[in-house]
């Protein structure tokens, strides 16, 4: 019997090519979209869960409260980890990482070098804490001695394609410090918040840095991880840490309204629930996971509704068959099984097509999202779940209703030709059509708003000039000065300056004392030279900029408007700002500019003259060069030549400021692109449904059209009659879906510090677009039927 069902299903598919094509295309696309989103969601939800004891690993974080202003930082001082390990028995392991955000230069010989991102310092307990596999070397000793180096598999192969890397010596960084390779580690899994290409032993950091590693309030840039004994109470541990924190650091701030609290943040929550502004890799948000999951469901629903709608629409053509089968002895169960087999067959084939589609689209998907997802990475059990969901649940839901619908046909009525629902009676396919229109319109609104918001992020006036600027990294003030002098003679250098940071770059935060305010405020701080304002295109709000680079400017400071707002100064010029025993006099106020990404509000900023930058802050110094009359592609070789003349043994590290700034929104951009891609697919699938349905309606109404034509109706009146049936549903869908879309997108926009006002026209645009799209399809489909000679259309009945 099953064989018969299968053969019939295949023959039916062949007999109705348009319907079959729409079904296969729609379902396969929906399945592909769902699979890709599943891979993405699976990756996000399993971030950092591959470590054997992931549930017990926590990262120490700082919760700073400065007179009610709260800051959460994912870093700790280097001194905290060992003290906490020693003090609390439930902390059974501890390891520290130190990550310098600049790339590391690896010297292969005097002329050959490469820059590598994610070069960490890691303690020897790294392999005890985490489940990253060391492919070669000893996990206990690989990171034990100073100047030991562990390379990722890919990097090792790149550096030593034909030789054994173990035991080889490489020189790293501007000081060309020699490191011995003591291990090869597997490439970093893409679903890890810790990223590495190379690991330097932690003792190397202690040997090369003059920073203070032994005080709780010094050198706060370590990532400290602790493993707790299973079943430990984290809240209790946090409570227990308070006295230790007081003893180590908080006693210093007593009576100043400043408090530091130690937090233990689960590593499995870092990816999606991070409250921290920055992390080693960009963190995601759980809302994005929900949004994509919802899109996947929407797409699947739309395709499922198409299937149900088209099958029911087609049932008219098959009614005679159903009636006959009943006359010949088929019962409801036989027919339900038959139609369900058809659904399973179509879903099964679509599933295979969907897999192929995923395989083809994966590179584009990965490129857009910056991931390395692959179907092969999916664990076996999820295939069982996926198959069950698609072929089982989805197949059943989409197949059962049409099967039940058709199996319920009365043979006598069918044989008399009375199988259609009576006019006026509610028809489920209208509900499905309505939901399709609703989902499509809501998606159009969401896509438009997301796109406009992202464009707003790109195009917002940042308060400085980001175009035509190249940023070059140097190690010392002297190097920066040398480079500035060397570049000065070139005609394409319009302006240039040096500073301790640049917009979008890393920036120091410090607490400063303000006259009449206890305990002062937290502010970002940069040191720049005299030219910085003009090179960056910054504007003064009041007062004046530095008048030169000389030592006489060392006591002056320039602040931004946010700083003034924070302090509540009415007349900021001449006021003093205290820091580390020095007092600086405010000589000017800069107009606010976005020195951080638009995810953040503009915070207070103070600017000191670069020549007064304290030595302990070390490197880097950034030279910002404003070029003109030269192409971007020509700038780098030109600067490279100058660089090589000046520093023949140093690697040139540079980037274009505009590109760097765009990188800040790479997540939003990929989100926007994917969202748009999936929306377009969803709309295509929905419109295919309208195509199928209107084609069926045109056939069903062919006789009616013939009669109308005989009675003198014009082509336009016939077409408008056909279209009006759909217009009604588009309008109802608009009334329901658009307020929902508005409500949701208002909520989404509220997450941005700088959001657009909700563009109301998008609501109208979505409704009009849906109306035009569906009407065009309906009219196109009906035109042929309406144009058929009435003699033919009446004869065919």
């Amino acid at each position: 019997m099953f064989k018969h069902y299968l053969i019939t299903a295949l023959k039916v598919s062949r007999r109705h090519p348009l319907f079959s094509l729409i079904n296969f295309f729609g379902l396969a696309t929906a399945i592909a979209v769902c699979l890709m989103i599943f891979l993405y969601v699976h990756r996000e939800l399993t971030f950092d869960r591959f470590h054997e004891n992931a549930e017990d690993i926590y990262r120490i974080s700082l919760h700073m409260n400065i007179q009610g202003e709260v800051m959460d930082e994912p870093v700790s001082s280097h001194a905290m980890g060992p003290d906490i390990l020693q003090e609390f028995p439930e902390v059974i392991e501890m390891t520290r990482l130190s990550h310098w955000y600049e790339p590391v230069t690896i010297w292969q010989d005097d002329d050959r070098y490469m820059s590598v991102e994610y070069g960490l310092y890691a303690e020897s307990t790294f392999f005890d804490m985490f489940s990253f596999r060391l492919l070669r070397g000893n996990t206990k000793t690989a990171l034990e001695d100073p100047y030991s180096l562990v390379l990722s598999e890919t990097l090792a192969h790149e550096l030593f394609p034909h030789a054994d890397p173990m035991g080889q010596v490489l020189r790293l960084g501007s000081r060309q410090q020699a490191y011995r390779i003591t291990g090869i580690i597997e490439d970093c899994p893409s679903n890890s918040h810790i990223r590495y290409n190379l690991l330097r032993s932690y003792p190397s950091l202690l040997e090369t840095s003059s920073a203070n590693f032994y005080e709780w309030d010094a050198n706060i840039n370590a990532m400290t991880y602790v493993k707790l004994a299973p079943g430990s109470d984290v809240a209790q541990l946090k409570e227990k840490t308070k006295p230790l924190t007081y003893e180590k650091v908080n006693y210093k701030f007593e009576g100043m309204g400043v408090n530091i609290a130690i937090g233990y943040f689960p590593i499995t929550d870092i990816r999606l629930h991070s409250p921290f502004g920055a992390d080693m890799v960009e963190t995601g948000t759980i809302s994005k996971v929900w949004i994509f999951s919802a899109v996947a469901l929407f797409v699947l629903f739309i395709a499922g509704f198409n299937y149900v709608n088209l099958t029911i629409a087609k049932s008219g053509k098959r009614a005679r068959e159903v009636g006959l089968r009943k006359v010949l002895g088929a019962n409801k169960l036989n027919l339900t099984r038959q139609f369900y087999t058809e659904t399973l067959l179509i879903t099964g084939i679509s599933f295979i097509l969907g897999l192929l589609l995923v395989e083809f689209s994966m590179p584009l998907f990965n490129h857009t999202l910056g991931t390395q997802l692959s179907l092969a990475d999916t664990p076996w059990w999820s295939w069982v779940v996926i198959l069950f969901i698609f072929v089982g649940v989805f197949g059943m839901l989409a197949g059962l209703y049409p099967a039940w619908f058709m199996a319920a046909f009365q043979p006598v009525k069918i044989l008399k030709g009375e199988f259609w629902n009576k006019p006026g009676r509610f028809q489920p396919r209208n509900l499905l059509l309505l939901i399709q229109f609703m989902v499509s319109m809501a998606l159009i609104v969401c896509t438009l708003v997301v796109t406009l918001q992202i464009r707003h992020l790109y195009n917002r006036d940042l308060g400085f000039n980001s175009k035509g600027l190249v940023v070059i990294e140097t190690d010392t003030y002297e190097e920066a000065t040398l480079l500035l002098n060397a570049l000065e003679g070139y005609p394409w250098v319009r302006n240039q300056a040096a500073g301790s940071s640049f917009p979008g770059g890393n920036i120091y935060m410090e607490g400063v004392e303000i006259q009449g305010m206890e305990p002062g405020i937290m502010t970002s701080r940069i040191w720049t030279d005299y030219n910085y304002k003009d090179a960056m295109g910054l504007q003064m709000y009041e007062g004046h900029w530095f008048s030169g680079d000389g030592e006489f400017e060392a006591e002056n400071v320039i602040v931004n408007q946010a700083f003034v707002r924070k302090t509540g100064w009415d007349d900021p010029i001449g006021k003093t700002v205290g820091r580390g025993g020095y007092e600086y006099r405010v000589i000017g106020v800069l107009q606010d500019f976005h020195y951080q990404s638009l995810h953040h509000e503009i915070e207070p900023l103070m600017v000191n003259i670069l020549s007064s930058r304290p030595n302990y802050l070390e490197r880097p110094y950034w030279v910002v060069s404003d070029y003109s009359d030269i192409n971007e592609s020509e700038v780098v070789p030109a600067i490279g030549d100058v660089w090589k003349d000046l520093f023949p043994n140093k690697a040139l590290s540079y980037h274009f400021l505009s590109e760097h700034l765009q990188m800040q929104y790479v997540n939003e951009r990929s989100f926007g692109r994917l969202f748009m891609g999936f929306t377009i697919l969803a709309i295509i699938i929905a419109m295919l449904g309208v195509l199928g349905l209107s084609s069926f309606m045109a056939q069903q109404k062919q006789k009616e059209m013939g009669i109308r034509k005989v009675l003198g109706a014009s082509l336009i009146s016939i077409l408008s009659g056909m279209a009006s049936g759909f217009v009604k549903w588009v309008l109802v869908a608009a009334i329901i879906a658009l307020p929902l879309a508005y409500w949701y997108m208002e909520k989404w926009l509220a997450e941005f510090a700088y959001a657009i006002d909700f563009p109301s026209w998008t609501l109208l645009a979505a409704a009009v677009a849906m109306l035009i799209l569906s009407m065009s399809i309906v009219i196109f489909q009906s035109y042929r039927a309406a144009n058929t000679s009435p003699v033919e259309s009446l004869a065919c009945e």
Partner: protein
Amino acid sequence: MIKTVELTKVFRTEEVETTALNKVCFEIGEGEFVAIMGPSGCGKSTLLNILGLLDNPSGGQYFFLDHEVSGHSEKQRANLRKRNIGFVFQNFNLIDELSVFENVELPLIYLGYSSAERKQRVEEVLEQMQIMHRKNHFPLQLSGGQQQRVAVCRAVVTKPHIILADEPTGNLDSTHGDEVMNLLETLNKNGTTIIMVTHSQRDASYAQRIIRLFDGQIVTEDKSTEFVLAAAAAQ
């Protein structure tokens, strides 16, 4: 074999009530060939649907193989129907997607025959009806006469006690019509009971008895002219 007692069928809509059959009583014995005749709208097809267990009467009794079936559920009727009744329709009602073989095979599938049994029975009946050479063709590749022959094959493949034919020659020219009527006659001679609805006097002449309906009631019940002549000739 078949007996109706005051069989009534009333169709009701919100505004109109139409009596399609009004207290119809008759009996049909095993091996009979009966034609039902009458003008359009007289209730012929309604009667055939009830006799074929496709529909239930609104009143009266219907005895099928000595069992009262007028109150049977759809499931019970379907069960009786598939084992005992074969149908031949005016418009053949073959399934276009299935081949000749598959169309004829269909009732056997629903009766749960094995694949080997089905093959044997179908080929047997196709041979018998001389359409074996077309077994892999699809209905639309056949002439009207051939299609009706396939429909007859499908009706007899389960060896039913009774065949109900609704205007079996209505869509055929006279040559093909005669061919089909000869087939039905042969089946009847071999013992199958046949009840046929027809407008055609010529087709009715193949029957042993004619039931004439008018406005839902039997107006006459007589032997067919040809049958009377044949009987007389035989004497």
